């Protein structure tokens, strides 16, 4: 681990801790309706009147879930048809053709579920209209949907003896209007100041320095406005195929730092909102700390293996040590502008959260270095996680951890005074089951059939890792890829589309059910016999639960992928 990395990591964590309370208070104020003053508030109320929504109405979990599903279902359908007809729609200077049905399905699901898995090449497939009116809109509202569900669950935990968990329409509206849009506006301007492009121009033809290469076409577009929400909303869908490795999408180290900060900012902030709602900030910081510890360890692990380089190269006398003249280690697939430290950090952050933006190619990582991003996704992306989804995913782990620990102290398990009973356990168990089911079964189907076997471009364990990574990414709504999997085929578009849909909504609905059930319970008083859920012991317990559930589920599969690959590398020499 280099000192450059240590400095970056420490600085990053310090700034993240600093902005956490701000984000937390901001989001809570927004959903509680404290931001709706002045003309914005008028606009909000007008919007409700037009839509026929009563903003003061509270909803049961069933109605909340129904609203959420309706909203997402209609959103996915609109996006599907927009892609299928983009040739006839405005803002298409490059005359991009209508997208194929399977790719449209995959992309519509992908953006609705906040996954932003991209089977297509952005600059060669999507018109500006599709990018802005379809995909960018989802970047906002799918992020708002995740945060809304997180707030619904946090309300369920902290409310007592009520039937309702909030209003899905006001949550979605307020989070978009008062949190996502204003931050993105400022953030996009910041990014433009660093050299990111924002235009509607046709692609620019340039002659490269070596004229023998022929003329080159440089893609243009409204990039900065897309990138701001792509990071903040942990969407990760790149404007360009090269994603955050593209100079127009990530011009320099400062834009890189701002982007990775944006990825975690709302996820971290939600911990603070939770602390505020529970009237005990320590509860929020405990969850924050558990996430922070897992993240720091994972990042260190990843960068260590990347910096070590490839053992297979040693026999050719390649010097892989870092010095003032060279970065050393494994630079394959990494931007020279960012180097090993900033790339590893980005890779760890983007997969801890369900962002999926990349500034380096994860497939080119060393096997164990690449295992980190894959495993972080498989843990359910609860290390800050996707906006909202990380928080509610982690709270489900809290339910499981509290259950076992609660029994160990001789009480019916409870969290913040709410008893964890068979109903909650059933829902939590369902949530814990859904993603392994999608990932392991999906991978099994892919490797068993011809259509799936064609996907990986590499043989052996690495090819297996590519498929496993793909399904892990889709089912956990990450969207990053082990890029050498050719996934724009009917098989992968369909299979991954299904994995993304259920990976999102088969979790959201039981999470809302838990919220509804907990909200109905009366709160238990806190005594010395109550399991404390704010100290280091609980943080340790929560981390153990996340790791054990993740490790035990995926270890056999990982043994056949990255672990076997690394050992084969070592054994060969």
């Amino acid at each position, binding site marked *: 681990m280099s000192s450059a990395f240590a400095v970056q990591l420490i600085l990053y964590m310090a700034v993240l801790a600093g902005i956490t309370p701000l984000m937390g208070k901001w989001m809570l104020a927004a959903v509680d309706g404290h931001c709706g003053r002045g003309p914005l508030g008028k606009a909000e109320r007008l919007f409700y009147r037009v839509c026929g929504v009563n903003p003061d109405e509270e909803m049961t979990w069933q109605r909340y879930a129904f609203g959420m599903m309706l909203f997402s279902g209609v959103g996915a359908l609109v996006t599907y048809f927009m892609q299928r007809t983009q040739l006839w729609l405005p803002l298409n200077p490059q005359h991009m053709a209508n997208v194929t049905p399977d790719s449209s399905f995959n992309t519509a699901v992908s953006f609705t579920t906040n996954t932003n898995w991209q089977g297509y090449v952005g600059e060669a497939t999507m018109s500006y209209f599709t990018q802005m009116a379809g995909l960018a809109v989802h970047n906002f509202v799918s992020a708002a949907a995740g945060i809304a569900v997180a707030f619904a669950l946090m309300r369920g935990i902290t409310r007592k003896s009520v039937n309702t968990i909030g209003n899905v329409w006001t949550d979605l509206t307020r989070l978009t209007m008062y949190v996502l849009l204003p931050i993105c506006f400022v953030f996009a301007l910041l990014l433009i100041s660093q050299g990111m492009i924002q235009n509607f121009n046709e692609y620019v033809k340039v002659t490269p320095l070596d004229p023998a290469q022929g003329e080159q076409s440089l893609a243009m577009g409204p990039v900065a406005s897309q990138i701001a929400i792509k990071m903040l909303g942990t969407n990760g869908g790149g404007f360009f195929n090269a994603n955050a490795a593209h100079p127009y999408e990530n011009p320099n180290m400062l834009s890189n730092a701002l982007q990775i900060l944006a990825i975690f900012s709302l996820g971290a902030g939600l911990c603070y909102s939770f602390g505020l709602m529970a009237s005990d900030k320590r509860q929020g910081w405990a969850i924050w700390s558990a996430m922070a510890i897992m993240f720091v360890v994972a990042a260190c692990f990843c960068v260590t293996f990347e910096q070590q380089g490839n053992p297979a190269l040693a026999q050719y006398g390649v010097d892989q040590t870092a010095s003032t003249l060279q970065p050393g280690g494994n630079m394959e697939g990494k931007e020279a502008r960012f180097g090993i430290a900033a790339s590893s950090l980005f890779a760890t952050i983007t997969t801890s959260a369900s962002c999926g933006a990349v500034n380096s190619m994860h497939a080119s990582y060393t096997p164990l270095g690449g295992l980190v991003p894959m495993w972080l996704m498989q843990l359910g992306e609860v290390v800050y996680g996707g906006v909202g989804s990380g928080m509610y995913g982690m709270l489900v782990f809290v339910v499981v951890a509290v259950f076992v620990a609660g029994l160990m102290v*001789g009480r019916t398990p409870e969290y913040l005074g709410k008893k964890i009973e068979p109903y909650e356990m059933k829902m939590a168990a369902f949530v814990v089951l859904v993603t392994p089911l999608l990932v392991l079964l999906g991978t099994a189907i892919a490797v068993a059939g011809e259509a799936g076997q064609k996907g990986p471009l590499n043989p052996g364990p690495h090819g297996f890792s590519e498929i496993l990574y793909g399904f892990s990414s889709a089912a956990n709504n990450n969207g990053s890829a082990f890029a050498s999997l050719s996934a724009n085929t009917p098989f992968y578009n369909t299979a991954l589309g299904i994995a993304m849909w259920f990976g999102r909504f088969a979790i959201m609905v039981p999470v809302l059910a838990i919220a509804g059930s907990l909200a109905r319970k009366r709160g238990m008083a806190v005594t010395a016999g109550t*399991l404390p859920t704010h100290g280091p012991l609980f943080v340790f317990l929560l981390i153990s639960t996340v790791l054990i559930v993740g490790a035990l589920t995926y270890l056999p599969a990982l043994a056949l992928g990255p672990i076997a690959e690394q050992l084969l590398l070592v054994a060969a020499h």
Partner: protein
Amino acid sequence: MFRKSKPLFDTPLLLEAASGAFQKLDPRVQVRNPVMFVVYIGSIITTFLFVHTWGGNGEAPGLFILGVAIWLWATLLFANFAEALAEGRGKAQAATLRAMRTTVNAKKLSEPRHGAAWFSVPADNLVKDDVVLVEAGDVIPCDGQVIEGVASVDESAITGESAPVIRESGGDFNAVTGGTRVLSDWLVVIVTTNPGESFLDRMIAMVEGATRRKTPNEIALTILLASFTIVFLLATATLLPYSLYAIQQAGTGSVITITVLIALLVCLIPTTIGGLLSAIGIAGMSRMLEANVVATSGRAIEAAGDIDTLLLDKTGTITLGNRQATAFLPAPGVKEKELADTAQLASLADETPEGRSIVILAKQKYNLREREVHKIEATFVPFSAQTRMSGVSMHGIEVRKGAADAIRKFVESAGGKFPEAVQRNVDDVARRGGTPLVVAEAARVLGVVELKDIVKGGIKERFAEMRRMGIKTVMITGDNPLTAAAIAAESGVDDFLAEATPEAKLSLIRKYQAEGHLVAMTGDGTNDAPALAQADVAVAMNSGTQAAKEAGTMVDLDSNPTKLIEVVEIGKQMLITRGSLTTFSIANDVAKYFAIIPAAFATTYPPLNALNIMHLATPSSAIMSAVIFNALIIIALIPLALRGVQYRPSSAAAMLRRNIMIYGVGGVIAPFIGIKFIDVIISAF
């Protein structure tokens, strides 16, 4: 009756449990436990795979498959054995109970009054609202309520207490239990239960597990274990296509065998807790019974573990029961000895415990011998509600003791004066929580006798312990607030309710519950019934009324109010045992992965052998060792499951830290040692 706790294992019990283990192989029994049902299916499949090797084309060496199959069946049998053993212990207790239910003939009265004609019917034929006569020497044929008569009853069959108790119509002592014996006099009893529903029947049913339903926590835990099982089923089942793909890619090696996959699956699913789960529940019920408490359901025992507020009656629980004289406080100009002497004289004929304690204190302090009342030609003046004094009259001298205001009237009417100093003493005593008795001889006030409630020894430490566990103790008393406060301070309870009425008790429970507390209380009287019904855990005294017993979730056969504390501990212990074994079971998986994964893929990716950090001899010995360890750990943990994890009262944080160290960290380490050890042994052959 169950106090003579049986040794955990004795030979007949073990033999019976062993045969029970085989009987439980019935698929209808197995399907009830999702975790063990997977093992069951795995055992059957491996057995078939072994049979398949006879054709000479098995997927692995026959001996290896046979070994795995045998140990999988053993895993199943060990789990069955644990359950059968727990049930067997319960059955032994039930047999003792059943022996009491000797079929007797009842004297059924034709009319519900003493003296009416009766005819003999078998006790089993009695139904609710029948009226029977029970005379000296008869066994009471059923549970019922006394509607006429008073008699001494030997309830030792139920309570183990040999001293007879008085049962009479009206009041709080009108309930009788079937199986007990009337020693003197007679009772007319109205039957309150139908055949098969009596208290004794319910006890037997509970103990035998016939009515044992899974408790909410048990259901939630089963759901969690089932979901782990499904996850592992997925993780292992998908290894087959993964392995096929790997071999297709590598071009060498052989596919993982079904036997190895099943072995891996059984090792990974939480068989340890899955196999012991029901035994833990049954054993919890047995431990309650050993404490002479009959719970109406397993749920009630669990709820006891959740309690954080205990309402305790002062009398009998916190204090010894009766006030006792502790000091003589003479009036100015009176010697303490003179006061003691007069006080003793005034109490000579007083047979109340308070009166006796004055006589005894005088004897202890000044060696004043008891005088015979008739020898000194004194006449006894008993206590009356009008005078509120008692004493003796002797040769025209009136000696009295009583409440301060009563004595003041008495003295002033005789022309005397009530000294200021005495009044101050009276106030002091009251403030200290004692009861002041003023002693006067004619017009002269001699001083004050201080009567105090004696707090039971060790109770303060017990309450401090409860506080550490997070349990709040609340004393309930009919005393005035001043006295109550003093005793509360002395005994160390957290709060008290003075001048308690049944309504006040009920509203206190409701108040605590509204604040989010779970409340337990004990009670015996009919007027306790509403409060008992409202409390989350209610322990009724067996000596109490039928109404109280029906309102309670448990009945304490010893009628010992302090038992509540024990009940809470048993409830907690049961939950802790479940949680700890779950943690242990899951933590075990880490070592099992390191044993099986390298062995399973030894032929596909030989470098994976680097994960064989235990250096197990061969792939098959590694897999066998893991399977054997997995089976033996169940046997090894049976005593823990039946006895329960050791419970020390402490805060939740301290308890969690301790149990995580033992069962979590220990659970990670233990199988590394165990599997290596077994591997060394089997590879020696």
